[in-house]
């Protein structure tokens, strides 16, 4: 018991160290560098490139929320964050976390590639936004849903980075037993990406809605009432993304029963979900073309 405790403490230290220096994803880094080094790059393209990277989006929100605190509600919209911070500050921030050497080695996942992980995050963001639009939410709220989806799996980055070998075991065991991925994270590492995600969101002052969507996207019923809608949508978007097989971040199977239940809770007809497929696919293709990785797959 005591031994386990020490083990866990040591794990936490390593995870915290990774959070502090977590760089942008290798998938977006070339475009980030290109955009941010171009003095004439417009705010529109800056927003577009940042919004394709969960780490950079989180970092931009962290920067504004470490100083700004209107009415006790943190900023969860990238649009507003860029207005507040200004284009140059955002470029400067992005440049300091877009690290080219992250392209190879260290940062990549063994179980699945960084490109697949990126695709999964983006897909969950896009689906969450579509669901929000479907529910009739305003554009500003839709953006919060997008951000919550994009960031939901941030907790996997430090785990993969610090425990690459074990993380591969997690992936293998979860696949063999057809168990949820996060169960095996907890079993083999003593902590899962939901807890790590929650640590990141708290440390970055991202506010309760993002803290809860990072920590409860696998158990939306556990979150507080005021964020229940958002977290349920992110949770559903995650299942849909897995079901559509767009990218992967560990989980390969979807419990259909859960999918039907959650759809009902969110208020969308399960049979209509396939309607999303086309528009989501289109939006993701646009992103790939923007990043010029279409050829890579």
């Amino acid at each position: 018991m005591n031994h386990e405790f020490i083990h866990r403490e040591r794990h936490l230290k390593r995870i915290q160290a990774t959070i502090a220096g977590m760089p942008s994803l290798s998938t977006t880094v070339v475009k980030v560098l290109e955009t941010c080094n171009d003095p004439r790059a417009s705010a529109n393209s800056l927003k577009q490139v940042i919004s394709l990277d969960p780490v950079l989006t989180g970092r931009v929100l962290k920067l504004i929320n470490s100083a700004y605190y209107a009415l006790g509600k943190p900023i969860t919209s990238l649009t507003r964050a860029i207005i507040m911070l200004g284009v140059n500050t955002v470029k400067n921030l992005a440049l300091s976390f877009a690290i080219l050497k992250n392209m190879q080695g260290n940062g990549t996942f063994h179980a699945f590639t960084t490109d697949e992980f990126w695709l999964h995050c983006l897909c969950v963001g896009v689906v969450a936004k579509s669901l929000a639009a479907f529910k009739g939410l305003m554009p500003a709220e839709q953006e919060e849903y997008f951000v919550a989806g994009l960031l939901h799996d941030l907790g996997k980055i430090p785990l993969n980075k610090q425990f690459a070998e074990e993380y591969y075991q997690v992936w293998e065991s979860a696949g063999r037993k057809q168990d949820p991925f996060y169960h095996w994270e907890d079993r083999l590492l003593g902590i899962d990406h939901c807890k790590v995600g929650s640590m990141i969101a708290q440390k970055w002052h991202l506010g309760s809605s993002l803290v809860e969507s990072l920590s409860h996207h696998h158990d939306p019923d556990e979150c507080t009432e005021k964020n229940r809608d958002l977290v349920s949508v992110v949770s559903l978007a995650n299942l849909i993304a897995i079901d559509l097989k767009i990218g992967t971040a560990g989980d390969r199977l979807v419990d259909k029963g859960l999918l039907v239940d959650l759809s009902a809770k969110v208020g969308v007809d399960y049979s209509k979900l396939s309607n999303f497929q086309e528009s989501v696919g289109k939006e993701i293709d646009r992103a790939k073309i923007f990043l010029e990785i279409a050829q890579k797959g």
Partner: protein
Amino acid sequence: MILKFWGVRGSIPSPGPNTVKYGGNTLCLELRLPDQERLIIFDAGSGIRELGDSLSADNGNKGCLNADIFLTHTHLDHILGLPFFAPIHNPGTRLKIYGPVTCEEDPLEEVIGGQLSYRYFPIRQHELGADIEYIDLMEGKYNLGRGITLIAKYLNHPLLALGYRVEYRDKVLCTAYDTEPFYNVFCTDTSDASFDEILASEGSRAAREENRRMEEFFKDADLLIHDGQYTQSEYENAKRGWGHSPIEYVVEAAKRAKVKRLAICHHDPLRTDCQLDELSQVYVNEEYAGGMKVFFAREGQEVEI
């Protein structure tokens, strides 16, 4: 309250025959409260050197000074005077230095205190006589004790910068420099290929709301000390995004917020005394300012609030 301007210039100290009247030192303000020993200083630009010398002279042999220094941000023109602020070399001086966190993860102590390293200055931070405590600030309301309330407000500058509102016995002093009006940075030209309707409208809405919050921040101030580095045409032609305000906009915003007196500061280093006098002719004028008193701040000037 009595406010004294020890430095009103922006960007870089600008001595010389053209800045004799308004002064060439960069920003530093001294605030004294009646019946209190308390000293509050805003910013440590080059103006803080003379403030420090005057304090040393006043204190004579006593040598103890207790002061709070509120830094608006950590751009060089607002911190470069600190090593030359004589009281930091006296044992017995107790300073609290407050300021916003910067882009990097470094704490205020390193960002400001970093000037006191051997490569920049012969006396190192840990060799200083004074007892200095650094406190990171963000937006919010702070109780400074003895009936003084301080509100810190996020400004629009290329680096995180704060404006301060001090409330004491029904009197209000506000600072809002270095800042410019929030504006929509996203494309609003419908014929442009990158035009995005949602982004364009959300961007304008955010800018409008933030500008409204800004005016609420200095609402009813007895004295507002505001950035006015540029004229409207200078601003529009080349200076948008530099983090400084056009005078015309500031006067209008202050009028809307029912400010009683407006001091324009952070004068451009290239602005001569003659030019500032000319600008005064235009803006320091009851008719233009709708009853609000406007003046271009001068080094050494004292204002009773």
